[in-house]
């Protein structure tokens, strides 16, 4: 079945093509568009599920590349000679085979798909979570005029994302990378008649361009260094390059440069400091988009890339440190911003940024597997929460301000309970999925050997985790518990009058317009832009902050002709209601996953100190993808284990040879099992702690202060005890955050205002997102505008001036020559004419008939004369002789 993985990206593309190209022309009904979209993704999901199962049984742990198997390949960019100009010194130092590979190479870029431990996980997440979101979107986007467009974009996005993770080389990853960037732009700007949506989409696109530039440079460097883009070949060569450590011979070499470029790209796509600014604004898109792109899939592309290139990253200790530090800072930074936001989607957006920071932290401390594990659990619970938020927004008639919610538990129990599961998962309550991955991240940060100062990273991450628990509890309290504030706010008040009026206007405009156009909905004034700084005073309930909220309400709504019957009178019957089945069923599915999804990576501490479950444990499953700097091999085996494996391989080979001699019918699959699966599935072999304790430091050097080791030492050198210690700490931290949230927003609701006043500057900084947007605006955006204005001025003054000056000069010259012509030339001609007229008027007048035919005849005459001049005498002589002969004959 794994031979058919090329179908997986193809199906969503087909669905998108059908919806996008035919949907409008043939006025597809929503049901048809929805079934095409959902059907194509469901089929892709089933195929990828079957493919992954079959891959796991037959091929794992080797990567499966379709072109090598002949299942699917196409030479996308055929042959170009590449001279390897980078990394010569490294290659020479790596010596032997790598150097012998020569200084030149032929770059053939294939279009083929790679299925391995990493891409299989991403395939399942993308198609599986994507399927839930597609189903949800059929309910959420119900009644929208651009239904077909929406599903076309979503399908295109699925295709791009699948190409990104399934491609077998950097070029295909780049195609997918740009593709998801494009689709993100299209989907954020889906309500393109809204100014803030257009601004947000452009912001996302431009910010991503900065990252993509780094990524592109990295790809060029890869080509210049390795002469190929195929993952397997690149990573095989990269393995033999010397590691660039902080203390070693090279601190910052070619591998660090490549890793830096890649990481800049990852920062852009995965919203890390300093390129995270687009993600919160991206909430201007429809909520399913936020769930699909900005929580579950696209933003994890950076993680995918970093993990895919872990060989390169692990070759540079400096870059590992950078990744870890950026991740930890982003986690804390975004978490603190999330505490004070009032828009439910904004809170979730900052939460996403924060969680992505956790993942990068995991990668930076060398725990790539755990990073991917967190990607997976995060995809479950964050998609769940975004869809839940979408359900709430749907029920609240597109109200996104949490201060106008409250007590929704009574009205939408299904949404509430599924959201509840997501809340527990993200807070890290045992045994929900978030706990397992977050705990592993914290443990790895504390015990890392890859970077020094792991304890600091652990501290920052723990703080961020506390904040996470706090703001998520706040979100739950404001949305689902407490007073039903939407009743109070709607009851009256100035802002609400305006709101109702504006809604009526918007509705009238939408009724008159036939198709979605810019004039369809009222424009926003500049003061209504998202991201405008809000004064602290406006934080009071129902005050002009509502400007923003109102904007959402008017615009981010369904067509008023919504058949669900709730869109008509937002200020009349205001009671929220449970969402339709198409919306809560995906929620339920995701809730189940968010609850139990973490069990694939259950901590060794809970299972007798080993990664149980064989291949089914995500740590063992991903093991063959991860390079181990201690051994220079893929897979986290100690050198002793590697030599043991080699010995066993040799033994097996000998055995194999014997068996080959005996019978030729030995099935290939069993051989594979013998050689690879058995030893690696014995990844249960050693308790991970033992590994950490015994393994040599990945980058050599001396042992530095290591929090986990110190704790272990204090607890009597028991690895399990140390691990338990950190589990308890992370649980306590989560509990503390939740308790704080309850204290502030359930038990003592007056506390938030009090503390906001008491911590005034801090509160304002967090509320205004540390003014980063304003800073970027002043530093970059305005400078760019100034530069553009300068260029324009140059163009209009200098260049246009030169052109106009040339024109002016020409005109003056022509005036001069005109005068000269009239006076001198015309004068001469007229004089001659007068002279001729005087002398031979009658003769010439007769010749000038004015008829072109006559003039032509004169020309012909000239031609005949010319011929006559050449041959006339000859002809005349001949004629004479002929005539003479004739006379002679006659007489």
């Amino acid at each position, binding site marked *: 079945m794994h031979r058919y993985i090329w179908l997986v990206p193809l199906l969503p593309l087909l669905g998108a093509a059908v919806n996008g190209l035919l949907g409008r022309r043939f006025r597809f009904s929503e049901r048809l568009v929805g079934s095409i979209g959902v059907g194509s993704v469901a089929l892709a999901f089933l195929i990828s599920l079957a493919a992954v199962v079959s891959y796991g049984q037959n091929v794992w742990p080797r990567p499966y590349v379709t072109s090598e198997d002949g299942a699917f390949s196409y030479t996308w960019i055929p042959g170009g000679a590449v001279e390897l100009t980078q990394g010569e010194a490294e290659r020479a130092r790596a010596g032997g085979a790598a150097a012998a590979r020569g200084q030149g190479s032929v770059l053939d870029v294939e279009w083929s798909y790679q299925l391995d431990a990493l891409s299989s996980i991403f395939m399942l997440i993308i198609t599986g979570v994507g399927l839930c979101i597609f189903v949800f979107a059929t309910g959420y986007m119900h009644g929208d005029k651009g239904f077909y467009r929406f599903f076309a974009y979503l399908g295109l996005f699925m295709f791009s994302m699948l190409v990104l993770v399934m491609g077998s080389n950097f070029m295909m990853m780049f195609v997918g990378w740009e593709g998801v960037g494009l689709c993100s732009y299209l989907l954020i700007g889906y309500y393109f008649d809204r100014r803030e949506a257009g601004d947000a989409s452009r912001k996302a696109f431009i910010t991503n361009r900065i990252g993509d530039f780094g990524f592109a440079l990295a790809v060029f460097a890869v080509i210049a260094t390795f002469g190929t883009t195929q993952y397997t070949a690149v990573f095989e060569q990269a393995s033999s390059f010397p590691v660039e450590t902080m203390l070693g011979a090279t601190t910052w070499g070619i591998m660090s440069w490549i890793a830096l470029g890649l990481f800049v790209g990852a920062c852009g796509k995965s919203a890390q400091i300093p390129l995270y600014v687009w993600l919160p604004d991206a909430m201007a898109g429809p909520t399913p988009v936020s769930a699909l792109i900005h929580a579950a899939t696209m933003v994890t592309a950076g993680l995918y890339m970093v993990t895919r290139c872990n060989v390169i990253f692990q070759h540079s200790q400096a870059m590992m440190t950078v990744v870890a530090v950026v991740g930890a800072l982003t986690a804390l930074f975004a978490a603190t911003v999330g505490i004070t936001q009032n828009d439910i989607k904004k809170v979730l957006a900052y939460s996403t940024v924060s969680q992505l920071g956790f993942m990068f932290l995991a990668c930076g401390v060398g725990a790539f597997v755990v990073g991917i594990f967190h990607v997976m659990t995060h995809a479950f619970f964050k998609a769940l929460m975004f869809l839940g938020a979408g359900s709430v927004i749907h029920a609240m008639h597109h109200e996104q301000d949490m201060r106008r919610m409250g007590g929704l538990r009574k009205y939408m129990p299904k949404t509430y309970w599924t959201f509840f599961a997501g809340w527990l998962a993200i807070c890290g309550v045992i045994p929900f999925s978030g706990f397992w991955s977050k705990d592993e991240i914290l443990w790895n940060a504390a015990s890392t050997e890859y970077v020094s100062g792991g304890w600091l990273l652990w501290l920052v991450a723990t703080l961020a985790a506390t904040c996470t628990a706090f703001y998520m509890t706040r979100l739950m309290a404001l949305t689902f518990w407490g007073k039903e504030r939407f009743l109070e706010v709607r009851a009256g008040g100035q802002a609400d009058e305006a709101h109702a009026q504006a809604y009526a206007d918007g509705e009238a405009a939408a009724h008159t317009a036939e198709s979605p156009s810019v004039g369809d909905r009222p424009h926003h004034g500049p003061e209504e832009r998202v991201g405008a700084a809000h004064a602290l005073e406006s934080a009071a309930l129902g005050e002009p902050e509502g400007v923003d909220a109102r904007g959402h309400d008017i615009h981010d709504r369904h067509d008023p002709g919504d058949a669900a019957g709730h869109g008509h009178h937002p200020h009349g019957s205001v009671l929220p209601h449970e969402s339709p089945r198409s919306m809560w069923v995906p929620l339920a599915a995701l809730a189940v996953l968010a609850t139990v999804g973490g069990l694939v990576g259950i901590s060794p501490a809970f299972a007798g100190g080993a990664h149980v479950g064989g291949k089914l444990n995500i740590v063992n499953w991903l093991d063959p993808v991860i390079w181990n700097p201690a051994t220079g091999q893929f897979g986290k085996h100690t050198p002793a284990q590697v030599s043991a494996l080699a010995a066993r391989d040799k033994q097996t080979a000998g055995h194999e040879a014997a068996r080959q001699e005996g019978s030729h019918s030995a099935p290939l699959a069993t051989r594979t099992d013998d050689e690879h699966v058995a030893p690696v599935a014995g990844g249960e072999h050693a308790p991970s702690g033992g590994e950490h304790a015994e393994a040599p430091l990945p980058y050599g050097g001396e042992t530095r202060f290591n929090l986990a080791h110190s704790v272990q030492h204090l607890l009597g050198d028991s690895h399990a005890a140390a691990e338990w210690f950190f589990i308890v700490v992370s649980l306590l931290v989560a509990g503390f955050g939740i308790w704080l949230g309850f204290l502030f927003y359930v038990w003592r609701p007056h506390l938030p205002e009090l503390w906001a006043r008491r911590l005034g500057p801090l509160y304002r900084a967090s509320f205004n997102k540390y003014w980063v947007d304003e800073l970027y605006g002043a530093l970059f955006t305005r400078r760019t505008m100034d530069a553009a204005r300068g260029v324009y001025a140059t163009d209009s003054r200098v260049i246009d001036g030169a052109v106009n000056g040339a024109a002016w000069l020409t005109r003056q010259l022509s005036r001069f020559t005109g005068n000269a012509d009239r006076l001198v030339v015309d004068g001469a001609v007229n004089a001659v004419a007068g002279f001729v007229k005087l002398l031979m008027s009658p003769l010439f007048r007769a010749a*000038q008939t*004015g*008829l*072109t*035919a006559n003039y*032509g*005849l004169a020309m012909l005459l000239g031609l005949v004369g010319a011929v006559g001049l050449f041959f006339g005498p000859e002809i005349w002589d001949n004629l004479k002789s002929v005539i003479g002969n004739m006379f002679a*004959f*006659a007489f």
Partner: protein
Amino acid sequence: MNSLFTPALLLLQGSMLDNMSEGVLRPDLSKFLIIAALLFAVGVAGVLTRRNIIVIFMSIELILNAANLNFIAFSRYLQETGHANAVAGQVFTVFIIVVAAAEAAIGLGLVIALYRNRETIFVDKIDLLKW
């Protein structure tokens, strides 16, 4: 009287007949040139005799084609005798075709402008040259 028909007999029996049949059965460069000359003459006659300006333009095309035929014939001739740049004639022909196309575009634009102003396309009605 006998002597009167001698040239005719010579014409019918002698080498002249052989030459003629040889020329017809195996046409060489000169036959192409003759055809081109005839086409040229037909075109010239058309230009000078017709009144309709559009037909005059068409006759000019005929003249240009006669010239093209000459160029191509000489090009082939040079090709086979191995002298000079053999395809120069073809290159020239390309340019002639380009010029002919430009001439037709401009000329027909003129015809339309003329028709709009004078409501005639007969050259003998257009005698502004005689002021």
